[in-house]
């Protein structure tokens, strides 16, 4: 079956603009995670959804970052007033419901965001 997909694969924007990054998880996966990976670093946690609700948003760096998952499937990460320091690869992962092999997080290919 299809894996986690993310669109766009690349996004170039100007400082101060608004961007939306989309994640389509593996069908049936109830948990969805967003991470950010800077060059030469490991992924850094941003937010985690269980179903439609954010179970943990402690990794969001500030109130310019927001994510939604209105129907418990597709998620959108929204960044307002982008800054050059937001440039990174944004990774999405999904995980099946616990009790059905629920530990593994399956990652998408990421969206490379460049803020000029």
């Amino acid at each position, binding site marked *: 079956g299809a894996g986690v997909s993310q669109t766009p694969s690349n996004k170039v924007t100007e400082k101060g603009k608004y961007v939306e990054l989309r994640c389509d998880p593996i069908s049936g996966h109830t948990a969805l995670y967003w991470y950010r990976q800077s060059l*030469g670093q*490991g*992924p850094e946690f941003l937010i985690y959804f269980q179903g439609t609700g954010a179970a943990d948003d*402690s990794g969001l760096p500030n109130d310019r970052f927001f994510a939604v998952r209105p129907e418990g499937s597709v998620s959108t990460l929204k960044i307002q007033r982008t800054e050059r320091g937001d440039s990174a690869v944004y990774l999405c992962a999904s*995980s099946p419901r616990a009790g059905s092999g629920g*530990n593994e*997080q399956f990652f998408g290919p990421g969206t490379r965001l460049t803020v000029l």
Partner: protein
Amino acid sequence: QQQVKQSPQSLIVQKGGISIINCAYENTAFDYFPWYQQFPGKGPALLIAIRPDVSEKKEGRFTISFNKSAKQFSLHIMDSQPGDSATYFCAASMLEPISGANSKLTFGKGITLSVRP
């Protein structure tokens, strides 16, 4: 404070050799320890994972050794191949106590493995 630390920073191994990557963690509440492999332009992919109730787990050429008292775990890649050349990340998380679902992963910085033909 970096909660998960990897060593070495890079590793070069000859084809057929053993690659060993080490990881140390700070938080004793962590109870799930995966290793991920990442190729350029791709997302990380799970290689193998271990829970703290076992000291070793083997899957094919990949083995995790876990030392709870030292708060360390390592990845051994036997018979290393050029196709194993990639970036490797250790990570740790706390599974939710009732559901067993995975919460956020805390990753190390990664190490670049090069396997020479």
